[in-house]
């Protein structure tokens, strides 16, 4: 096993003990990227020169920048390309921002830099985060390292593929309706969506502001916690940032120790029509956890079946308003050739935005327009209240909710691309959490018969991220999933030889 397969924790300690130099660590990742990424296309931009320079500088210093220590010092972290990075282009997977270079760092990014992380590159996504497969990108689709003919999930598919293929130790993604958890599940990784307000949204390019949240994709719960500790916490620059949002990586060991963990499973909601592989993995994991004093009970989420409908109306209405800013005036590409302002707006937006983004902006505008507002948008917000209430009531009785992250393992490229509604329905298990503002984590839980990873998610109470992380760690220990090398990655490394 090479350097690139180590956990973030192991990499950090190898660097701290000088078993690996920062330059070697960076070079191993860049070399992996050179071998694999022409096929996987996880990255929109690789930040090669800056990483090489910083690694050289750090190698000369003893320890790294002042106050910086393992585990994050010199660790190559990938950042989804809808999170602003100063001086490093941030495209959102959109033609309209293909040359956009932000003048500032997102708060989450500056906090990673402060901890000594190296931003190895910006990862591919569905344009502005709108999609579940990373096929809706101006830069083309990303492929799943487990099977190159399949999608990595989305919209943070580039972040998930990068971590799964050893092209980054961990990654930031964003989760508006499952976009961190679902790709993590489809790529065999941990995907953490914090409580709304735990990670600052400053510098996260807005899609649906009441739902958007930056999250973490990593190989282990411990790695996830280390990154989350760095990026979480109150930020004066985000008015929705929470005062009690700081998450600590160190485990207190309290969870599960004092007694049984009570876990609710909404069997009735997800069982019908569930893929048999996902169903088998869910049952197997529940029975393993039951032996370790996890007390399961069936719960009812009576309004969960309305979550997709409510989600797409709320998200698209917010998107139609947020994306009005792409008008060719302050940033992004302008489509010129006209001296009429209206015409400039129309040409700029028509040329600059992709098909799915236009579809959503159109749906959101329609749902907000005179005569339809009450029937659609207002009704969706009321449904949101009911969905949220279901979770609140259930989480008074149980500590956690468990359910599959995605109804299937990774699907084939192109399979749902021309059927928007089918694509939307693949988010059925994830969107409720965003509507309710809750924290949730997808954890590697098993494999399908054809060897594709399957993830289950644990959902916790608002602002009890610490408890959720500790439960996730217990889950990881109990499930003790056998590690496998993604089959597609194996093929790429063998044919590329020389790959680290």
């Amino acid at each position, binding site marked *: 096993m090479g350097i690139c397969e180590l956990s973030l924790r192991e990499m950090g300690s190898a660097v701290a003990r000088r078993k690996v130099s920062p330059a070697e660590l960076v070079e191993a990742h860049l070399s992996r990227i050179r071998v694999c990424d022409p096929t996987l296309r996880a990255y929109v931009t690789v930040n090669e020169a800056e990483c090489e320079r910083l690694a050289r500088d750090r190698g000369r210093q003893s320890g790294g920048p002042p106050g910086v220590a393992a585990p994050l010092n010199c660790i190559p972290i990938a950042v989804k390309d809808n999170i602003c990075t100063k001086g490093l282009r941030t495209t959102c997977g959109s033609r309209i921002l293909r040359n956009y270079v932000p003048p500032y760092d997102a708060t989450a990014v500056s906090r990673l830099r402060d901890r000594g992380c190296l931003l190895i590159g910006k990862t591919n996504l569905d344009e502005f985060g709108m999609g579940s497969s990373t096929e809706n990108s101006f830069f083309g689709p990303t492929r799943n390292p487990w099977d190159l003919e399949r999608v990595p999930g989305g919209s943070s598919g580039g972040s998930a593929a990068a971590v799964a293929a050893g092209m980054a130790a961990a990654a930031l993604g964003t989760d508006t309706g499952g976009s961190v958890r679902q790709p993590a599940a489809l790529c065999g990784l941990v995907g953490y969506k914090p409580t709304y307000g735990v990670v600052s949204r400053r510098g996260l390019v807005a899609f649906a502001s009441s739902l958007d949240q930056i999250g973490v994709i990593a190989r282990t719960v411990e790695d996830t916690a280390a990154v989350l500790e760095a990026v979480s916490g109150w930020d004066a620059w985000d008015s929705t940032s929470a005062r009690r949002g700081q998450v600590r990586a160190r485990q207190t060991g309290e969870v599960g120790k004092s007694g049984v963990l009570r876990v609710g499973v909404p069997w009735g909601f997800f069982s019908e029509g569930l893929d048999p592989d996902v169903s088998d993995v869910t049952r197997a994991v529940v029975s393993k956890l039951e032996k370790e004093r996890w007390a399961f009970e069936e719960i009812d989420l009576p309004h969960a079946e309305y979550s997709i409908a409510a989600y797409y109306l709320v998200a698209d209405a917010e998107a139609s308003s947020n994306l009005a800013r792409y008008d060719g005036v302050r940033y992004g590409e302008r489509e010129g050739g006209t001296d009429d302002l209206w015409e400039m707006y129309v040409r700029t937006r028509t040329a600059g935005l992709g098909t799915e983004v236009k579809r959503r902006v159109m749906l959101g505008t329609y749902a907000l327009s005179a005569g339809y507002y009450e029937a659609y948008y207002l*009704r969706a917000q009321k449904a949101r209240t009911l969905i949220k209430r279901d979770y609140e009531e259930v989480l008074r009785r149980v500590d956690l909710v468990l359910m599959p992250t995605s109804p299937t393992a990774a699907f084939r490229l192109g399979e749902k691309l021309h059927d928007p*509604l089918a694509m939307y329905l693949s988010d059925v298990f994830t969107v409720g959490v965003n509507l309710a503002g809750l924290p949730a984590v997808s954890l590697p839980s098993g494999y399908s018969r054809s060897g594709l990873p399957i993830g289950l998610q644990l959902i916790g109470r608002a602002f009890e991220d610490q408890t959720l992380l500790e439960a996730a760690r217990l889950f990881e220990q109990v499930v003790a999933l056998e590690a496998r090398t993604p089959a597609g990655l194996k093929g790429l490394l063998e044919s590329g030889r020389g790959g680290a």
Partner: protein
Amino acid sequence: MSVTRSDVEHAARLCRLEFSPDELETLRGELGRILEYVEKLRELDVTEVEPTLYGLAGSTPLREDVPGEDTLAREDALAGAPDEENGHFKVPGVL
């Protein structure tokens, strides 16, 4: 819920987007199918239910109405502009 051609054209105008006749027809069908799906929400009795507008309810933080520290320098704010003149964003004539 059937969406008419003129509904789609009206929304496109509001969005400042232009579509070919074929694209308009495709969109009409797609939006129609999506709206038909979300009709599901009509099954819910929401008469006594308050809408949820924000991620999690919290109070809006307020501050004095003065420029904050550490704001963007003018040239940085203009660096990504498609067109500028004399330190301002420049657009085609409005009047």
